């Protein structure tokens, strides 16, 4: 089980701030392709940074069960 967190415009378009996906030992890139394609948010995902367990990570990071993956659309704090 992998938990996916979504924020801001990404959350609004997907219609949820959190998804639970029954997978493990896949890369973030694979997770995006096989499980997030249905939401029509390719462009926003493409622009987003990604974090695993609250630390920025690369798209080829392999996800283990229990990992929390956050897609971070372009930030606008400050």
């Amino acid at each position, binding site marked *: 089980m992998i938990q996916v*967190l979504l924020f801001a415009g990404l959350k609004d378009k997907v219609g949820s701030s959190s998804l639970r996906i029954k997978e493990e030992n896949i890369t973030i890139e694979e997770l995006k392709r096989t499980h997030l394609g249905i939401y029509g948010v390719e462009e926003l995902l493409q*622009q987003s*940074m990604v974090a695993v367990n609250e630390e920025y990570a690369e798209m080829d990071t392999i996800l283990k069960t229990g990992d929390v993956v956050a897609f*971070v659309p372009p930030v606008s*704090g400050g």
Partner: protein
Amino acid sequence: MRQYWMTKDPIQINDCIERVIRPEAGAISTFIGIAREFTEGKRTLYLEYEAYVPMAVKQLERIGREIQDKWPEARTSIAHRIGDLGISEIAVAIAVSSPHRDEAFQASRYAIERIKEIVPIWKKEHWEDGTKWMGDQKEQVAYHDGKLKRGGK
């Protein structure tokens, strides 16, 4: 007393300042980001900030470490608001102390630039005629391919 925090409550700049005062400090540079009502004539009613809070705190702490690496005598404190903000309310407050002013200015400028690059916080503008999640305000190409712009040393 935490040096870096996210809060739903109004921020007082003095809360950051008191965290960076020390006997060696002769200069404090602060930066305060406030909710602007008029942007080129367009009126904002209020702002809404969302954050990935635990990660945002970690990224603020990381900015503090980057500053300490670059300017070892600087001390930094940063607070960022989440939730709804009325006009002129404080969204972000940064205070940096150092023995002399040059490092304090440089470091507080560095802090706000890094916040706009790496801290997972998002601003939603609420105008009279609609809303929009803002993003990519630095127009950093680095964002478009989803890669993190590295700072620090």
